């Protein structure tokens, strides 16, 4: 059976209020498939019964589980490959020339199950210009479940098949039963924190590179604009922002300009905006 219109509306409003992610009509299948495991775990025969119970009780923990189930996405290592090539060949070497303290800070927003921040660390390790540098990666996500998984750094066989070169697998991972665990030395370089992009950011410092890929697409225009504005405020004036291939700042927040970086592109804060002093150190 498919989810009823009433149940879909309830879930859509809940997810919209808690995460600003918009579930358009036509996403019923997504809601159904993500909530079936929760419904079963709670002892309900189907998603409609589960949602009806949820809307009556409104237990915060249960509502949070629903939001988490609908805001997590499948991801792969070095996703789309070109941004990571650009990072290694263009962005990191450029930043290496301008940072006397030999330290880089990188933020992976909406890090899901951790593949992206760990891919960033592995890319930094493969960048000769950063040999001996301190590279700090802060990875954030809305989902506590995803953060717990990411901190553990353990991935199934199917997950390590996704985009991870075999040489990288044997170099940076060890077997953990049927799974693979990323080495401690990589895990130690990533700090995982809970953060809701749609709310004011907690003090997280200033970043040289921000990865915010394939997350703005879920937000409505005012939310996109607000997030991009607040990202500017935690970005070094000469910092680099990576967005997903289907995302852009044009017409959303024109304080950014798109700059080619290898076969990919990054977004930089326009000179005129920098002079207005709209970036600040937190």
């Amino acid at each position: 059976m498919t989810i009823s219109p009433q149940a879909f509306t309830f879930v859509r409003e809940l997810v919209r209020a808690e995460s600003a992610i918009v579930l358009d009509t036509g996403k019923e299948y997504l809601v159904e498939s993500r909530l079936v495991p929760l419904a079963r775990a709670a002892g309900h025969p189907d998603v409609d019964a589960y949602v009806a119970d949820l809307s009556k009780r409104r237990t915060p923990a249960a509502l949070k589980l629903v939001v988490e189930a609908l805001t997590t996405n499948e991801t792969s290592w070095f996703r789309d490959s070109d941004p990571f090539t650009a990072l290694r060949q263009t962005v990191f070497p450029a930043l290496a020339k301008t940072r006397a303290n030999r330290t880089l800070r990188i933020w992976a927003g909406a890090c899901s199950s951790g593949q992206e921040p760990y891919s960033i660390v592995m890319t930094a390790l493969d960048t000769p210009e950063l040999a001996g540098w301190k590279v700090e990666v802060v990875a954030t996500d809305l989902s506590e479940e995803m953060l717990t998984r990411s901190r553990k750094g353990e991935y199934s066989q199917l997950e390590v098949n996704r985009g991870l070169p075999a040489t990288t697998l044997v170099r940076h991972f060890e077997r953990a039963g049927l799974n693979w665990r990323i080495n401690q030395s990589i895990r130690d370089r990533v700090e995982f924190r809970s953060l809701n992009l749609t709310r004011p950011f907690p003090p997280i410092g200033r970043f040289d590179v921000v990865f915010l890929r394939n997350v703005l697409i879920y937000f409505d225009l005012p939310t996109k604009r607000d997030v991009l504005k607040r990202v500017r405020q935690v970005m070094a004036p000469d910092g680099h922002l990576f967005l997903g291939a289907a995302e852009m700042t044009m017409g959303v927040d024109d304080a950014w300009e798109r700059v080619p970086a290898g076969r990919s592109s990054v977004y930089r804060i326009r000179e005129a905006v920098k002079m207005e002093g709209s970036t600040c150190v937190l």
Partner: protein
Amino acid sequence: MRALIVDDSRAMRRIVGRILGDAGFEVLEAGDGQEALNVLEGLDGPPELACVDWNMPVMDGLTFITEVRKRPEWRSITLMMVTTESESDRIVRALAAGAHEYLIKPFTGEAMLEKLDLLGLLRTSTGV
């Protein structure tokens, strides 16, 4: 582009063949390493890719890869081991013998396309 699938399972050859066919490859097949060497000998030029199972009768995948690497005229073939063997030391052995990539069964079509992307064998590098 041409791809040689070396696997003793006909079902697996069909699955891999469909993924590679959809990615634009002309697909050739062999049921073991020796048969694959015979196929290569009969071609006018080497294929771009060979997907090779490890455990097969007559000649296993590791031996096949070692034999291919001995032949300068086949140096351009990209070799990917596609196998259920999933221990680290197996992966290291295959890479040391000359495999360029290693895909562990079971895998999804997307995972195979991502490996081809890593190897520079997809016509477009994004959108997989």
